[in-house]
């Protein structure tokens, strides 16, 4: 069963890892519905 398809997706990106909007672009292609996207910053 697909992990993302038809699911509500919360994205917690990282400024020095993968930022939220970049993850969002990927999630969209897998049929996930993004309900929230944020990018954290530790520096």
């Amino acid at each position: 069963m697909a992990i993302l398809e038809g699911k509500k997706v919360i994205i917690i990106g990282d400024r020095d890892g993968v930022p939220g909007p970049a993850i969002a672009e990927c999630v969209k292609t897998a049929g996930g519905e993004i309900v929230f996207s944020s990018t954290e910053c530790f520096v």
Partner: protein
Amino acid sequence: MDLENQKRVKEFADEFGPENLVVVLGAAEGEAAGLAAETVTAGDPTFAGPLTGVQLGLTTYHVCEPELKEEFDEAVYDEQVGMMEMVLDVDDIVDEMSAIRDEYCKYL
């Protein structure tokens, strides 16, 4: 995890039901990924945020994990994330994430 983000995760779990949610992470290190994953499954391990003591058990993956990569459009993944595989310690991230999932995820 940022306190405001914890609050939002909790609200979405209440609104949509935890079984319908997936949390996708982009953390730079395995340990940070593990901590974020623990926060949305077993509760905030730093006892600071709204998820302290809240065991949501949400399904969670790091964007670089193979199970998720399979579901993404390959070209989009390459363009958006691809290069980070050369930067991040993906094996370490996979180990940390799998350990948390095995122990705390309720909806796999």
